[in-house]
């Protein structure tokens, strides 16, 4: 906000940062889930742990993964990005595994976790979030390659080559092409 008169930019001022542009939204949603999942698990474990121990411990684990992903995406250093890739992957595996488990064996889950039924209690956001996270991290890794030679001035050109490579994911996510206003 220090330069309110600057012309609108399709991306943030630091194009290859994990927390600017679409990453801003991603970190916000991750932070939301980090807070809600861990707070909910904390209350459940503290007040009625024996009611559904497996569900509550899985909720707590999910909360920790969300915290890790939020922090590493917000930091965005090379090491943090690697940890973010791992935590997003663990998250995706967790949603799929716990989602399947909760449907196959409902008796183990008398109370819902964040990941039960693939996150249906949370509008399936837990299922979609790690996919967007991994796509975002992959896109940044690729852009870093094209932008090392030609910085922000060639962003459109870099984006054009980048979107050619990323066509598959753009179609899959339905959002890829819009991310930078290249429509």
């Amino acid at each position, binding site marked *: *906000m220090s330069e309110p008169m600057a012309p*609108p*930019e*399709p991306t943030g001022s630091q194009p290859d940062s994990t927390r*600017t542009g679409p990453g801003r*939204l991603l970190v916000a949603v991750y932070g939301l889930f980090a*807070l809600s999942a861990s707070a909910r698990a904390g*209350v459940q474990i503290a*007040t009625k742990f024996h009611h559904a121990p497996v569900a509550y411990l899985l909720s707590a684990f999910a909360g920790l993964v969300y915290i890790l992903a939020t922090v590493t995406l917000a930091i965005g250093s090379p090491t943090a990005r690697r940890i973010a890739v791992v935590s997003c992957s663990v998250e995706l595996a967790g949603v799929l595994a716990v989602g399947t488990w909760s449907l196959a064996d409902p008796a183990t889950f008398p109370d819902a976790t964040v990941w039960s039924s693939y996150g249906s209690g949370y509008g399936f956001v837990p299922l979609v979030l790690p996919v967007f996270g991994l796509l975002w991290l992959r896109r940044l890794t690729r852009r870093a390659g094209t932008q090392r030679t030609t910085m922000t001035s060639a962003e459109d050109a870099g984006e054009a080559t980048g979107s050619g490579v990323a066509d598959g994911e753009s179609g899959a996510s339905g959002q890829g092409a819009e991310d930078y*206003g290249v429509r």
Partner: protein
Amino acid sequence: MNGAVPTTIIVAGLALAGYALLMTALNRRMNVPLLAAVGVLEILLLVEVGIIVAKLAGGERPAGLATLIGYLIAMPLVPVAAAFWGLMERSRWGPAVIAVAGLVAAVLMVRLHQIWPVIHV
């Protein structure tokens, strides 16, 4: 009990989310009208917190008191956190963060009703 305030928050939250998403779609950045709208949502949430605290002070208790107190703390923080995080962004994705806050405010009202059904929506 009076459900006007939670209902207003749901409508306001969804309207804010729609407006903010429109700004994202039109490639607009954060501006003063959007911040003012966030401020209105914040005031509504504070009013709701006040109503619930008054109920608690009157001796009524929900089944999940700890959860309710967590909500009372988290509710007013949502628009503030979103405003700060969105203002740091100088692209269309700032308003997108505000859209999330609007949706969350609406969802929180529905959850509040589930935690303590005397809070009508």
